[in-house]
C-alpha cells in the first residue's frame, strides 16, 4: 500500500484581488466575480504594474518579468515535502512532475526540478494538467511495490497567470500560481495511507481546455464547468459507495477551479463546510497544484483515522480521485 509521508506547497507573494481586476476595466466587477466564481484573490508571479501596463498581451514578456519560475516554486514545495517526510533529497529514487507551464519544453520540468534539488535519479514528467494528484497517485499505484524505489517525489506546479490574457474578463479572474509536492512510498508507512486511486480521460473532448505554448490559455468555460461538477459528483459517489465515508468527520477536497462550483458539489453530496477544504478563494485556480496544495496546507490538522477524499477534474478532459486515510 502506498503512503504519503510529507507534503509541501509554494505560492508567490504577488496578489491580485477582485478590485484590481475591476479596475482593469474589462467589463467585470468585484461583485460579479464573487457571485460567479467565488474567488476573492489570487497569487501571481507577475508584477501587478506589468499587468496594468501590458495586460500580458505577449506571454513572452510575462515569462521574462515574472518573480519566480515554475521550477523555483516547485523546488520550494519539494523541499518542504522532503523535510516533512523526514528524508533527504538524496533518498528520492524517482521524481515525477506535472506542469502545463514548463520553464523549458526540453528537458522536462521534472528533470529541471531534480537537477535543482541535486537528485540524480530517474526524473520525468507525467502530465494531464488539472487532475495531476489523481494521475500521479494512480500511476504510482499501478507499479508492483517492489518496482518502486524507497521514496518517490511527486510535483505539480503551474504559473498560469503568465499565460492569461488580462483583457479577458473570465480568464483574468480564474488563475493563480502555485506548486505542491508530496513524498510517496510503498515501503515506508506515512501519515496518509492511500486506500483508493482512480484516473480516467476522454481525449475526444480535449480541446475544451487549451494552453497554447506560444499564446494564452483558453477554454470552453460552460462545457468545462458542467463537466467538472457532474464528474466530481460521480467520483465522490463512487467513493461513498465503496468506502464508509462519514462527512461529519471525513474531508472532501475538489479541483480548485472555483468556489461556486465546489459549493454545488458539496451541496449535492451533503458535505458540511467545516469538512470541505479549499484554497481557491485565496490563491485562485492553480491547475494541478490546487488540490494537493490544499491538502498540504492542512497537513498539521489531519486527525488520526480521518479519511480524505480528493476528486479532481480538468484538462484532457480527464478526471480522477484518491482516497486517503490518516
Amino acid at each position: 500500500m502506498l503512503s504519503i509521508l510529507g507534503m509541501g506547497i509554494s505560492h508567490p507573494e504577488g496578489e491580485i484581488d477582485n478590485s484590481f481586476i475591476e479596475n482593469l476595466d474589462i467589463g467585470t466587477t468585484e461583485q460579479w466575480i464573487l457571485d460567479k466564481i467565488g474567488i476573492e484573490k489570487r497569487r501571481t508571479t507577475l508584477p501587478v504594474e506589468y499587468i496594468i501596463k501590458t495586460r500580458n498581451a505577449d506571454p513572452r514578456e510575462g515569462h521574462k518579468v515574472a518573480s519566480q519560475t515554475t521550477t523555483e516554486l516547485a523546488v520550494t514545495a519539494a523541499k518542504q515535502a522532503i523535510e516533512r517526510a523526514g528524508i533527504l533529497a538524496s533518498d528520492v529514487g524517482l521524481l515525477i512532475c506535472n506542469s502545463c507551464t514548463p520553464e523549458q519544453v526540453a528537458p522536462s520540468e521534472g528533470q529541471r526540478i531534480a537537477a535543482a534539488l541535486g537528485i540524480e535519479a530517474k526524473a520525468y514528467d507525467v502530465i494531464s494538467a488539472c487532475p495531476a494528484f489523481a494521475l500521479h497517485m494512480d500511476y504510482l499505484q499501478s507499479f508492483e511495490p517492489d518496482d518502486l524505489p524507497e521514496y518517490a517525489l511527486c510535483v505539480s506546479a503551474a504559473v498560469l497567470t503568465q499565460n492569461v490574457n488580462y483583457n479577458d474578463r473570465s480568464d483574468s479572474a480564474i488563475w493563480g500560481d502555485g506548486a505542491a509536492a508530496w513524498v510517496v512510498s510503498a515501503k515506508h508507512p506515512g501519515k496518509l495511507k492511500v486506500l483508493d486511486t482512480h484516473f480516467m480521460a476522454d481525449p475526444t473532448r480535449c480541446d475544451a481546455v487549451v494552453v497554447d505554448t506560444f499564446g494564452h490559455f483558453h477554454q470552453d468555460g460552460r462545457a468545462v464547468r458542467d463537466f467538472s461538477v457532474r464528474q466530481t459528483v460521480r467520483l465522490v459517489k463512487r467513493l461513498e459507495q465503496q468506502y464508509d465515508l462519514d462527512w461529519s468527520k471525513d474531508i472532501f477536497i475538489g479541483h480548485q477551479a472555483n468556489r461556486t462550483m465546489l459549493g454545488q458539489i458539496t451541496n449535492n453530496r451533503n458535505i458540511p463546510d467545516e469538512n470541505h477544504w479549499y484554497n481557491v478563494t485565496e490563491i485562485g485556480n492553480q491547475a494541478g497544484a490546487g488540490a494537493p496544495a490544499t491538502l498540504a496546507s492542512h497537513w498539521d490538522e489531519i486527525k488520526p483515522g480521518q479519511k480524505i477524499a480528493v476528486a479532481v477534474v480538468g484538462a484532457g478532459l480527464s478526471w480522477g480521485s484518491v482516497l486517503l486515510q490518516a
Partner: protein
Amino acid sequence: MFLVSNMSTMKPIYLSAVGYAQPENLLSDWDGMPKPAVSFPVPTQHTALKLDYLRETKNSDPFQVVPGLAETPTSLAERASRAALARAGISAEELGLIFGAGSTPLETTPVESQRVGKALQVKIPAFDVNAGGADLALHLETLSAWKSEKVPQYTLSVSSHISTSRLPFEEGTECCFLFGDAAGVAVVGKERGRYRVDAAVARIFPSLAQRFTIDLYGFLRFDSSIEEEVFIPQLQKLVSDCRTLISGDAIYLESQLTPPSHLKLREALKGPSWRSFWSETGNTLGAAPALSLARLEEEAQLQGKDSVDAEQIVLLQCGVGLSVGVVVLSREE
C-alpha cells in the same frame, strides 16, 4: 524497474507493431539552408516547416512558427499511430491506454497523448510520460513494472517531435544539420506481439539536462560533446548490463548519434551487427527507435522477407533529459 538486475524478472510485454510518419518537406529543398557546419555528410532532414516560411523568415523567431507549419507534432503522431495500428491489425477501439511524449508541443495542454486520442476518437486514459530521448524505453519499462491488472491489452506509445521548428538557421550552427522531424509510435501488447520485450531500461541524468535544451519560446541548443562524454559511455554500460539477454546475432539499431559518435559506439561495443537510419532521418529524438525499427521492417519487406534478419533487435536511445535507454526485443512471429 530501477535496477538492471530486475530485468531477469520483468513481466512479459510485447511490441505488436511500430509505425512512423515524417513530413514531406526536406530542408535540402530550401535554397537558403546554411552551408554545413559539420565535417560529416548532412542527413536527409524532413521538416514540418513550410519552405516558403523558411525563405521568408529563416525561422528567426520560433514564437511565430505556427503559421509556418505544414505539419504539427499531432498530425505526425496521428499518421504514425494509424500506421502502427494497421501493422498491429487492431483498431483504435482496442486500445486501453495512450502514453505520449514530445519536446516541441504547440500546446502544453492538452498533452500529446490526449491530442492523439482525440484524433483516434478514443475515450481511454491518455497522459504524457515524457523522458526526452528515451521515451520508448521508459514507456516499456513502466508497463513491464506495472501490476498485470493495470496493463491493458494494447497500449499506444507515442513520441512526436518537430525539432526543425526550433533550429536557429540564421546562426547556422552545428545543430541545424543534425535533426529531423518525425513521430514514432509503438503498439504494446500485453499478451502477444511481433516481438517479446526481453529488457527495457531507461536512465536519466538530470544534472546534465541543460546540455540539450529547447527553450519555451526559443531555440534548440545542443552541446555535441555530450555524445562522447555521456551517451556513448552510458549506452555502453546499459548494453553491458543487458549482455546476458542479448544473443550474438542481434541487430543493434541506433539512429540518434551523429556518424562519428555512432562509429565510436560501435567500436566500443565491438562485434555485433549494426544499423543506423540517421543519414536518412537525422536525429528524430524520441521518435527514433520506433521509426528505425519500422524502416528496418520495411527494408525486409522490400526484399520479400516476412521479418527482419535477426532473432533479436537491440534498440538504443539517447537524448534530452539527459536520458539513455535500451530495449531488447526477441522476434515472436
